[in-house]
């Protein structure tokens, strides 16, 4: 009689459903997964070690590249850690701008997740729709910071610059005729805030579109309901956070429970799941997008009425503006010192956590009083989630592994760091 033994499948690192560079060793019994062993680290760039050799501000750009689908949220935790150690508070307007962009980032992240998750388990269309909306928000990123993705917009003490009064326009070209260009420019006639307001008007209908494609879809439900169930108790043990924890029915959101910046002045709700399966987490994230939309609208209303500084006037932290530097020697010195040596942060250690789109993203910063961090530790939400992979996929079919990778919202930039 033939010997029956388990079969080992090497899933990734080059696999379209592996969300980057996940190498997954799957021990299969027929089509059932007996054991999953994720091998990570293929995208390890030693961000934490690199940060130790750079002045504080130069590492903000590295933070963008951690979770490269929610760029500004990563920066947010990092600049908040520096601010905590230095004991500075950014101006109110800067805080509102940060919160607004943090929520825009959350929408960006969830759109990316929804598209990729849909694509992974066979819903092609959603991907095309979500990327259309992502494009609108990327343009907002570009208008405010000059970069579509890696913005480096949040700085200790505020944000890099105030919101622009005009939006860049599409020009006539061999590929875009006059009529088409005018069409594309229709919502770009006012300021960035007008542009975003226009987006928030339309966006709830877009979510309705996605939901009409998926929520009651028979195939979607077959692929997600009852897959990857994690009980609330277990989710806490495994260090879950964010939508992964809320999907299991734990009402926990740092924006509400440990409010930072201006979240305590804003009105929004925390969606919570019931069973803790992929479908519940899907519903939680969909509702989060609606809530984020609501927060963005509140921020726009506040920002329209309250002009003011967006950066501290402390030249030990924030560079002086260009015009002052032309005639003020002291400003020039400040600028030179800031961009060569950086600034010294008082000795101490701080942990600052934010509600990142993926969960709790924290920066543990140790400073020995130098102009460079002594140690930076990045607490990435996805790392804890992926470590539970074995437990979540055990006993499921091979095809469900893909659904579970999707529901964990894995991005290797932050897991491997």
């Amino acid at each position, binding site marked *: 009689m033939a010997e029956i033994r388990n079969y080992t499948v090497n899933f990734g690192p080059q696999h379209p459903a592996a969300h980057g560079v996940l190498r997954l060793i799957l021990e299969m019994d027929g089509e059932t997964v007996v054991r999953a062993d994720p091998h990570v*680290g293929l995208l*390890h760039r030693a961000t934490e070690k690199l940060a130790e050799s750079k002045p504080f501000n130069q590492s903000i750009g590295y933070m963008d590249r951690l979770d490269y689908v929610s760029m500004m949220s990563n920066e947010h935790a990092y600049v908040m850690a520096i601010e905590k150690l230095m004991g500075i508070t950014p101006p109110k307007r800067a805080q509102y701008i940060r919160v607004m962009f943090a929520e825009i980032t959350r929408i960006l992240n969830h759109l990316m997740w929804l598209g990729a998750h849909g694509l992974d388990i066979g819903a092609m269309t959603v991907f095309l729709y979500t990327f259309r909306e992502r494009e609108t928000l990327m343009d907002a990123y570009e208008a405010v910071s000059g970069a579509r993705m890696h913005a480096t917009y949040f700085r200790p003490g505020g944000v890099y610059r105030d919101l622009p009064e005009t939006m860049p326009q599409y020009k006539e070209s061999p590929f875009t005729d006059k009529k088409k260009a005018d069409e594309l420019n229709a919502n770009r006639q006012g300021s960035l805030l007008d542009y975003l307001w226009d987006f928030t008007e339309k966006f709830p209908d877009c979510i309705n579109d996605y939901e009409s494609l998926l929520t009651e879809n028979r195939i979607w439900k077959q692929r997600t309901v009852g897959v990857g169930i994690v009980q609330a108790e277990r989710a*806490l043990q495994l260090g879950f956070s964010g939508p992964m924890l809320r999907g299991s029915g734990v009402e926990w959101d740092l924006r509400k429970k440990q409010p930072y910046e201006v979240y305590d002045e804003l009105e929004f709700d925390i969606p919570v799941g019931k069973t803790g399966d992929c479908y519940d987490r899907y519903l939680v994230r969909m509702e989060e997008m609606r809530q984020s939309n609501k927060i963005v609208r509140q921020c726009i209303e506040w920002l329209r009425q309250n002009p003011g500084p967006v950066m501290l006037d402390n030249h030990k932290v924030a560079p002086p503006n260009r015009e002052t530097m032309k005639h003020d020697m002291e400003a020039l010195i400040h600028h030179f010192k800031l961009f*060569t040596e950086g600034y010294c942060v008082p000795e*101490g250690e701080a942990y600052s956590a934010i509600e990142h789109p993926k969960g709790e993203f924290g920066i543990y910063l140790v400073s020995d009083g130098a102009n460079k961090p*002594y140690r930076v530790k990045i607490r990435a939400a996805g790392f804890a989630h992926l*470590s539970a992979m074995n437990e979540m996929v055990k006993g499921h079919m091979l095809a469900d592994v893909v659904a579970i990778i999707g529901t964990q919202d894995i991005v290797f930039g932050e897991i491997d760091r």
Partner: protein
Amino acid sequence: MSEPLVKQLGDIFEDSLVACEEALGEVTVEVSKDDLLDICRQLRDQDELAFEQLIDVTVVDYLTYGQDEWATTEATGSGFSRGREESQPVRKSWQRERFAVVYHLLSIAHNRRLRVKCFIKENRPSIPSVIDIWASANWYEREAFDLFGILFLGHPDLRRIMTDYGFVGHPFRKDFPLIGNVELRFDAKQNRCVYEPVSIEPRVLVPRVIRKKKDETVYVAAPEQGGRDG
């Protein structure tokens, strides 16, 4: 909110804590290696503490803590590395154990955080694993082992996680160079990838700044000190 926490911890654990302090609104508890498991189990199980989530485990290597190399009289091409503000007292050298394992805990029931620190020796550093108390310690401890070479006793699967298969050394230690020790290239003759000692030189891109003390006495830097960290 956290003021009672310091007091609470003092009441419950009394003398078994090495230190317990609050700074920047964060409570840090220092424990000894032998008490770690007992204290952690109580931190999780006692109702008035209830730290049911282990958020993070990490290591800090205090080898070069407080050192700087800002002092110089001439602008050099090699650049400067670390510098500290002169107003702050400079520590001669780190007086305590080299490694600190740092645990970040979160209590959802009481909505508060706690940092637990445990200093361990430099020679064959090891510490008991908390994996039986919090399952999330699994990968965090693997990462700390990989990057710092700390042995977590009782961990069932202490493999490297971040670095390459067959990697030698523990890269996040302060005495490991930023550019590493080996480089990888494809060798056409042998038709395989080969590892070789690094050929590029470490450098600093920021130019060295001339600095003087307030009383005009001039610092003199040893020339070999500059530009060692990439």
